[in-house]
């Protein structure tokens, strides 16, 4: 074999054409972010064709971030080529002629790869973590020498509210730390509970609401949460709560 034949032979491993159930699958020597080979489906013929990525750009994202919701309009942000359509997650060409087919294959394939790259760059990880446990573990370390326990505290309404994190400070006051996650139930419960406890007007109770600032909180959400009391972003907890430890009594 000469050099050209060797290269052709190598290329056939990453670029090939296969008959599919209702079209022709074209794989090209290009990769998605994960390393998967880019392929498009060509349907139609002999004089009019449609080319589609069959939703592979979206599948690339879902293979890494399976809970992402991506609309067709969002997918369109991933590529700059005009004339392509997005429908139900698939990037597709308009009807093209045989003469236009090579370009359409290339354009759809590139749009699919570009979109996959773009989606990946804009993918936020929805890390589900036990935020309440994280806060408790943090408080246990911070107040290692002071008792930390769950306790029930009656509010101004006389309704009893259970708090997971109540620290007895060295000055005799109680520090009540409420960990809140970014969902409506958690927010509403924290606001109602903390307002009621504040209505006791007990000078020996200090309340703080800790929220996970790795989640995206809008201004109104924080304002609503703030109705319950003083807020502390978790990333600032070290600075804030060290002020309450025994070495720096309040």
């Amino acid at each position: 074999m000469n050099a050209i034949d060797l290269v052709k032979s190598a290329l056939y491993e990453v670029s090939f054409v296969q008959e599919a159930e209702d079209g022709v699958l074209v794989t090209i020597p290009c990769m998605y972010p994960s390393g998967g080979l880019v392929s498009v489906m060509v349907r139609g013929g002999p004089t009019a064709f449609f080319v589609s990525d069959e939703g592979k750009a979206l599948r690339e994202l879902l293979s890494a971030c399976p809970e992402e919701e991506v609309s067709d309009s969002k997918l369109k942000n991933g590529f700059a080529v005009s004339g392509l359509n997005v429908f139900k997650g698939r990037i597709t060409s308009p009807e093209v002629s045989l003469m236009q087919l090579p370009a359409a294959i290339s354009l759809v394939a590139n749009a699919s790869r570009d979109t996959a790259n773009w989606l990946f760059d804009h993918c936020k990880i929805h890390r589900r973590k036990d935020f309440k446990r994280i806060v408790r573990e943090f408080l246990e370390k911070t107040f290692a020498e002071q008792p930390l326990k769950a306790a029930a505290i009656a509010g101004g309404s006389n309704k009893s509210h259970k708090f997971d994190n109540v620290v007895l400070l060295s000055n005799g006051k109680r520090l009540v730390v409420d960990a809140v996650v970014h969902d409506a139930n958690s927010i509403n419960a924290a606001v109602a509970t903390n307002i009621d406890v504040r209505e006791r007007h007990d000078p020996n109770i200090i309340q703080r609401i800790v929220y996970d600032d790795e989640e995206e909180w809008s201004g109104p959400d924080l304002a609503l949460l703030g109705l319950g009391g003083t807020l502390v972003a978790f990333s600032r907890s070290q600075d804030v709560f060290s002020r309450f430890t025994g070495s720096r009594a309040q």
Partner: protein
Amino acid sequence: MPAVTSAAEFVSYIDAFLAAEKYLVGLGVRQDWRPGRDDGCWRVKYPIEVDGEQRGESLIVDAYPDRTPVEFYILIEFGQVICRVDFEPNGGHTNDIWGPVPDLAPLVSGPHYHAWELNKHYFKSTTRAIELHNAIALPDNLRRFAAVFRWFAAQNNIRLNGPLELDLPPRTRIV
């Protein structure tokens, strides 16, 4: 999942998680496939239990029964995927041959498995999704869903107690 403040901590946590004996919650119960995140996709999801606790990790199966040949994906996720089978008979994958994992096949044709061990070196951030750059071909004898599922479970120390009450969803479109 405990608090992690660095990529190294996250990698250590996942190493320990994958090494631990795990169970799928609800495996013995007939599952209903539900529409997945993209067109033609059907999904089933099992919470993963370790030492009696479910900390948010899940095993997900995404299936495309209307494709010929049928395609499906089996993955473990913590909000992002840490390992995955891509059952794409007509697909292919290019490995990171100049990356940190030696002796990888440059190309993998057909169904393949992105193992955590081959990809954890890429994990550099706790806020960006990790790309699973490397994969190995599935053994040739694994061409049916149940067999692939059992193999994946064994690879990741997931105990399947009893029969697998799960099969791929039926086609929804007439050929």
